[in-house]
């Protein structure tokens, strides 16, 4: 470790020399500084969240107010508004598809993981930057290209991809089946290819950085839970995204080169296609091999952020630090072997269904442990409701509500009725959509001072939280009733069926709630951009937190710490330690400096620590003589 820190120390000096020459392009556009890249991800993520949210408002208008005259949308949607002033049916499907794709990949994967992994990993483990700044820059720009391509596909004459975000073939393979499977689907596949490359570059970087560039004393058992979460997320992504790539590649072959991986026995538009022997179910297996871990790629960083924010603002150590890590490890491993619970009624062998039901319900256990640990962390705390804390508590609530409905859906017998109904929509929007979204917002509120050196306005944050929190429940909770009643998802309207020709009032309510909730995000946008320039100046450690990033200057330069990287002497959760004067002890405070609050086993470590500090001083001295 000692040699490693020497090396990073030297390279940091190089960075410092560069800093004065940074021009606009190298500072804001092709930056290799992890902090700037994190911010780039964040702003891009916010942009996509607005687009994705807006698309959902469009189809909620259709579902809530089916008779509404949508002529006023013609300036934006043009030909997608029919002559009768209605939303085009095919375009409705495209809206649903793009909403899903954008939210899952661009907002909650890139926007969440990309932002916070990039921003926090070097700052919290005590590194100058990512292992490879260049690869990191490349990762963002591939994501950007992916976004541009996906954005262009929104404006095609035949519309963007329209087969649902899962793009199951044959629908996604045959242009005759739906116009969106033409050029729109091609662009979808190209965009996703760039996206996968971006995720992999990012993921490799996160993993390498966490393993190799931790500062002195920052052992794995002293990592904040955020870092654990980012680490495991990157591992999941690294192992599962290539499988999505293979699925997409085979789909490209089927679409463009006449192969039959997924196609068989198809008669469409008056002709029998030559394909035989393929299996659409194969695609589903490959897709969900990413698709399910993807849920945890989206969720784990949010849980990591929550752990950090809740501990800080409860002024208490996170309860069961080791149990939290073990739970996340369990979730990571199990996330790879539950994918087929999305396919209970796909026609796959029912025996497989039994196996996957069993594995799926096991994954509920580590999730439950995490919830109980959050609750115990709040118990007998000294809670400060910063906006970040509010959003974290909101996340726990969504995680419970959405997680419990997963127990229904993971049970193959119950899933027969609920599969592809609004019950599923309610389930995953709460547990992965809203929970992760809240994790992201909690993170933004919490680390905004570190990002921009200014504070976001807390009161606007409270208003934003309460409208959004209540709004999300008003949108998604009623969907459980609609789903139990059997309403299928991805339906343009339900009036063709007697069993679903009702609940127009409830759907109207949901749509109204969605519009209000979406509009309330304007408060956040204002707060975010206004505070960036005009917010109150932040202090160095505004939340009185223990982790390393708050020891860096308010405006950290490229290299993060001006002098030597601080060493770490304790775990990140020494809040309200008995005997200590303050209610937090930063990780950089040696145990030998706090004899009054040390626990018995820590007292034993003091001797060892003093030795290490001596060694470190020697290294410092030799560095000084070199320069």
């Amino acid at each position, binding site marked *: 470790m000692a040699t490693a820190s020497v090396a990073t120390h030297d390279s940091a000096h190089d960075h410092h020399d560069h800093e004065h020459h940074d021009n606009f392009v190298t500072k804001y556009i092709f930056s290799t500084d992890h902090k700037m890249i994190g911010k780039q991800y964040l702003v891009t993520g916010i942009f996509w969240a607005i687009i994705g949210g807006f698309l959902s408002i469009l189809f909620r208008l259709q579902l809530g107010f089916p008779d509404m005259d949508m002529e006023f949308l013609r300036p934006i949607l043009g030909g997608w508004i029919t002559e009768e002033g209605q939303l085009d049916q095919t375009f409705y499907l495209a809206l649903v598809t793009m909403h899903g794709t954008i939210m899952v990949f661009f907002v909650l994967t890139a926007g969440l993981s990309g932002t916070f992994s990039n921003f926090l990993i070097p700052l919290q483990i005590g590194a100058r930057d990512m292992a490879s700044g260049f690869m990191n820059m490349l990762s963002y720009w591939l994501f950007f290209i992916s976004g541009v391509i996906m954005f262009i596909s929104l404006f095609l004459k035949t519309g963007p991809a329209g087969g649902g975000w899962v793009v199951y073939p044959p629908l996604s393979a045959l242009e005759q089946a739906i116009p969106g499977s033409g050029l729109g689907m091609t662009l979808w596949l190209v965009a996703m290819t760039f996206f996968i490359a971006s995720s992999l570059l990012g993921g490799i970087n996160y993993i390498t950085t966490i393993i190799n560039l931790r500062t002195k004393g920052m052992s794995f058992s002293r990592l904040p839970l955020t870092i654990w979460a980012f680490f495991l997320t990157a591992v999941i992504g690294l192992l599962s995204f290539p499988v999505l790539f293979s699925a997409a590649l085979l789909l490209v072959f089927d679409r463009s080169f006449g192969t039959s991986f997924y196609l068989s026995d198809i008669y469409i538009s008056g002709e029998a296609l030559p394909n035989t022997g393929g299996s659409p179910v194969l695609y589903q297996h490959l897709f969900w091999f990413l698709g399910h871990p993807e849920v945890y790629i989206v969720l784990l960083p949010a849980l990591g952020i929550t752990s950090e924010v809740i501990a800080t603002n409860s002024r208490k150590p996170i309860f069961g*630090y080791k149990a939290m890590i073990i739970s996340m490890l369990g979730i990571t491993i199990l996330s790879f072997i539950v994918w087929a619970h999305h396919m209970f009624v796909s*026609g796959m062998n029912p025996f497989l269904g039994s196996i996957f039901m069993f594995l799926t319900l096991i994954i*509920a256990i580590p999730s439950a442990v995490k919830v109980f640990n959050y609750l115990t962390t709040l*118990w007998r705390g*000294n809670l400060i409701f910063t906006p970040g804390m509010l959003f974290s508590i909101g996340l726990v609530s969504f995680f419970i509500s959405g997680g419990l409905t997963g127990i229904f859906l993971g049970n193959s017998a*119950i899933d027969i009725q609920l599969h592809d109904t609004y019950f599923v929509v309610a389930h995953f929007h709460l547990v992965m959509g809203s929970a992760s979204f809240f994790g992201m917002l909690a993170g933004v509120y919490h680390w905004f001072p570190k990002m921009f050196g200014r504070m976001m306005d807390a009161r606007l944050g409270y208003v934003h939280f309460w409208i959004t929190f209540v709004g999300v429940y008003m949108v998604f909770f009623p969907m459980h009733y609609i789903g139990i009643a059997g309403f299928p998802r991805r339906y343009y309207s339900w009036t063709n069926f007697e069993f679903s020709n009702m609940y127009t009032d409830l759907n109207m309510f949901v749509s109204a709630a969605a519009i209000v909730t979406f509009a309330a995000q304007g408060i956040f946008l204002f707060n975010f951009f206004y505070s960036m320039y005009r917010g109150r100046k932040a202090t160095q450690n505004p939340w009185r937190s223990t982790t390393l990033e708050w020891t860096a200057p308010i405006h950290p330069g490229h290299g993060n710490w001006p002098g030597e990287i601080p060493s770490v002497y304790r775990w990140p959760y020494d*809040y309200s330690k008995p005997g200590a004067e303050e209610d937090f002890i930063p990780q950089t405070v040696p145990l030998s400096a706090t004899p009054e609050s040390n626990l018995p086993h820590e007292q034993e470590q003091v001797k060892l620590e003093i030795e290490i500090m001596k060694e470190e001083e020697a290294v410092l001295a030799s560095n000084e003589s070199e320069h």
Partner: protein
Amino acid sequence: MYGFLIAVGVLLLLSIIWMVYRIQTLVSVVKGSDKKIASGSNKINAILFVVFLVGSGLLMFWYSIKEFDNYQLPIASEHGVVTDRLFWITMAITGVVFLITHILLFIFPYKYQYKESRKATFYPDNNKLEIIWTAVPGVVLAGLVISGWMAWSDITAPAPENAHVIEVMGYQFAWDIRYAGKDNVLGEHDFRLITAQNSAGVNFKDKNAVDDFFSPVVVIPKGEPVLFKIRARDVLHSVFAPHMRLKMDAVPGMPTRFWFVATKTTEEMRAETGNPEFNYEIACTEICGRGHNGMRKVIEVVEPEAYQKWFAEQKTFLQNDPSLANGMETEMSELAEIQ
């Protein structure tokens, strides 16, 4: 003109909000409340959590009870009773967990809101607690898994020998229903044989196809097993009969199946629901294109005797359209005429 007025109104509203925001910021700076660790808002937020808990809890119970008959679809199949029971058992268990965890989650913020005089309890871990709340969910989930697995095995077990075989074929955007006829065996099919007259691509050279017939409505007997043989001819579809608690994807190139026993005739259900117009329906639940939401088929459940009578009256494909027999061997076309 309207647009202009609305724009002015919005602008005014925004500027008022803006001014309120600036004023309260200035006030908080003057008061120095931004320097405090927890301002007065801390208490308000703590109270709001309790308000939310009580308010949304009451709303949930009120609506769940009031609307029960609306969202709880009547059950009309034997296995539906089993899966619904599982559903409600799971609902009871998760409901209790949902309530307890949420009460704690929203009461704690109120109870343990920041006080300068108090220090939080340093309570980093407790292995006993961790083991308890790993084991208890484990045991409960094991119970759910086992009961679910038993139900699932029964539902997906091979259909009884005497099940009435009906083919349900999905295509954009409708279902084709083919009955196996007197021999209760469906004739072979091949997608290359599909024509305007032969939409299911039935191979009429196959002896078993001779007595197959088409029906615009799925007519099935009450109390007897029915086997749906499900396939698709263009893209994925999914057969969903909500009252039968039945769902199975229709996959091009890979036949699937689902068997069930209907327990109530359409007439009985009309009496039970008090809706003389009631019909059992099939819908599509796998996105399949523009007309995804319009793939309706009616299931008519009748008494077994009425079913036998109806069944005997049906005309086969070949009787309806003898030209389908073109290219058939003479021996078989005679057979078709006799039928």
